[in-house]
């Protein structure tokens, strides 16, 4: 009897470690570009091609909204580097979201996922927010998760996909596995084959124009300091990846608002302050990745800046002045603004160079990759 138990135990242990991409010394995942580390994969959700494919189907399926109008892909479009091009996103019932759709490209490397929420640190947790949120309603499933599960339990394609994605589970179609599959697909949405990548990581000396190269030097210079917040291979806040020693989050106030000159932000967009209640956290948001930034307009957490040129003007001035109306105030003088945003002067050529550098972060493979596209759309 004891031997049988030992055997069962050994089988169990080996089943758990099998197929594990999660370990620190694993081989590089096949979709990870040159110069990029493996992302951290949660130990209870190993990454498999089957799960990625199931997650892709779910991501683009409008049955993921209660009224069957909207999917994840409605606010995260591949051709816009998984943003939606709107100033503010709109939920399945027509309600406007207070924030701009943030790109989910390379989100596997983010320590926190939303614009300013410090509490949401895994993709599995994050997707529950659009599924069940009530203010605003996004996908509208609060109180109706049984209906969500039922929709896929009666679809033969999904029955098969869940079965192969979660082998050995007797009842694999459930909310937890829906979350695991979508998170797996999101981890697959990795971008790292831009002109910049070809120049820096792939040794292609001709990949970037001379103007973009001048812009790159500006970007990384102490004179304008862009790289202090948009740092590392992902041009974002501190990255999380396989083997990283310390997970750190970062939120900064970039002087977008200073209502009444006391540092206030619009009450529906107070950033980190919403969670901590600490006044000095007012208006602090996560520095988003600048990869594919050419495709993700409009910019900022509330989509309030339309073009890359205007974004540069904003940082060049060291904050935005709003001269009239309820949000009147000069963000340049906000008491909570990051000390790294102090303003700078650029010649018109330098500004063009900087824009050209930002455009060199565009990865056309990302937007044409058939493995990331809506599986229900037939490509001619």
């Amino acid at each position, binding site marked *: 009897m004891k031997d049988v138990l030992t055997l069962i135990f050994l089988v169990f242990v080996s089943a758990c470690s099998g197929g594990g991409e999660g370990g620190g010394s694993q081989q590089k995942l096949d979709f990870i570009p040159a110069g990029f580390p493996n992302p951290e994969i949660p130990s209870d959700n190993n990454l498999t091609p089957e799960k990625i494919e199931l997650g892709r189907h779910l991501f683009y399926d409008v049955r993921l909204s209660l009224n069957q109008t909207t999917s994840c892909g409605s606010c995260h479009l591949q051709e816009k580097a998984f943003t939606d091009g709107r100033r503010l996103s709109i939920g399945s019932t027509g309600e406007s979201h207070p924030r701009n759709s943030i790109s989910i490209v390379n989100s596997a490397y983010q320590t926190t996922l939303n614009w300013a929420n410090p*509490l949401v640190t895994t993709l599995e947790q994050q997707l529950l927010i659009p599924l069940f949120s009530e*203010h605003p309603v996004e996908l509208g*499933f609060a109180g109706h998760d049984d209906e969500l599960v039922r929709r896929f339990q009666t679809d033969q394609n999904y029955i098969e996909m869940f079965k192969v994605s979660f082998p050995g589970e007797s009842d694999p179609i459930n909310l937890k596995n829906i979350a695991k599959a979508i998170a797996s697909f999101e981890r697959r949405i990795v971008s790292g084959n831009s002109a910049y990548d070809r120049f820096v990581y792939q040794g292609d000396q001709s990949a970037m124009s001379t103007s973009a190269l001048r812009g790159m030097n500006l970007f990384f210079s102490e004179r304008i300091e862009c790289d202090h917040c948009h740092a590392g291979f992902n041009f974002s806040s501190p990255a999380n990846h396989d083997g990283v020693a310390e997970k750190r989050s970062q939120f900064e106030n970039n002087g977008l608002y200073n209502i009444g000159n006391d540092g206030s932000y619009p009450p529906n967009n107070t950033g980190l302050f919403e969670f901590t209640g600490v006044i000095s956290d007012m208006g602090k948001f996560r520095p988003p990745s600048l990869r594919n930034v050419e495709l993700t307009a409009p910019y900022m957490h509330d989509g309030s800046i339309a073009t890359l040129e205007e974004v540069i003007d904003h940082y060049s001035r060291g904050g935005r002045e709003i001269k009239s109306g309820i949000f009147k105030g000069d963000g340049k003088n906000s008491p909570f603004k990051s000390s790294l945003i102090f303003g700078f002067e650029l010649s018109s050529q330098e500004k063009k160079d900087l824009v050209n550098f930002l455009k060199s972060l565009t990865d056309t493979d990302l937007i044409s990759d058939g493995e990331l596209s809506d599986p229900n759309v037939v490509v001619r």
Partner: protein
Amino acid sequence: MVKYMVRRLLVVVLFGVSACGGSSESSKNIALKFNAKLRNQEFSCNTTYSDIGTTNSTITPKDLRFFVSNINLIDDQGNRYPLDLNEDGVYQYQDVALVDLENGEAACSGEGNASLHSTISGSAEDKNYVGVAFTVGVPFLLNHSDTVDSEAPLNNTAMAWNWNGGRKFFKFDFSSNGMPTGYNIHLGSTGCTGNEVGAINVCSSPNRVPVELTNFNPDSNTIVLDLEALLANLNVDFNTDKTAPGCMSGPTDPECRNIFPKFGLVIQEIPASGQKIFFVE
């Protein structure tokens, strides 16, 4: 479900052991009855209520549910005895119960369901009880657990509060003349912060509501949630622009200044006081 059954088996086994040990105290079954009242009527999703608040508005209910935990009965000597809840796999788990007063009909069909849960069942020592104490809220460790990985009722997605990493403790949603899409009263912990991997370890505003009621006999009395008192002196037709519609526990939300003190909770500079919305009938 399997976990739940294993727990039940364990409970049965432990109960068996303790029964064999010849425990000196006998216990009795307790059924703790709840309801809610508004305009001198029992609350129902099928009723609209007129003459509400400072603007004499008419409101239509959309949801009414709240978590109750840490229930103790108080005997005539002032001693407290915990109510050991019957776990039912739906509404009661460990020492937490979800009181569900919406029937999923009319405007409650949005997020509601047909079943109700107005009576919390359990057992306590066989004493002469004259009072009851409980907390409106979910205990810290259970509150910040993963929604999809929790036992019912903690996996209830209508009470989930993923944005704030916990649950809504109390939820009363309705529409009014001035707020046709909804005025929402949501209570839950805010100001939560975690360690570097995001696991919450402290909340600056826990917003759990302690309730203690005297002159209460569990056999004959009901615990009443007085919605009339909750909405007193409130303008249910108005919400400050660009803030949560109603009061969703936002520490700076102007609408919470009226509502929080009725729960006895601290908000902005208004000091804490006793709760004013639960009474015995």
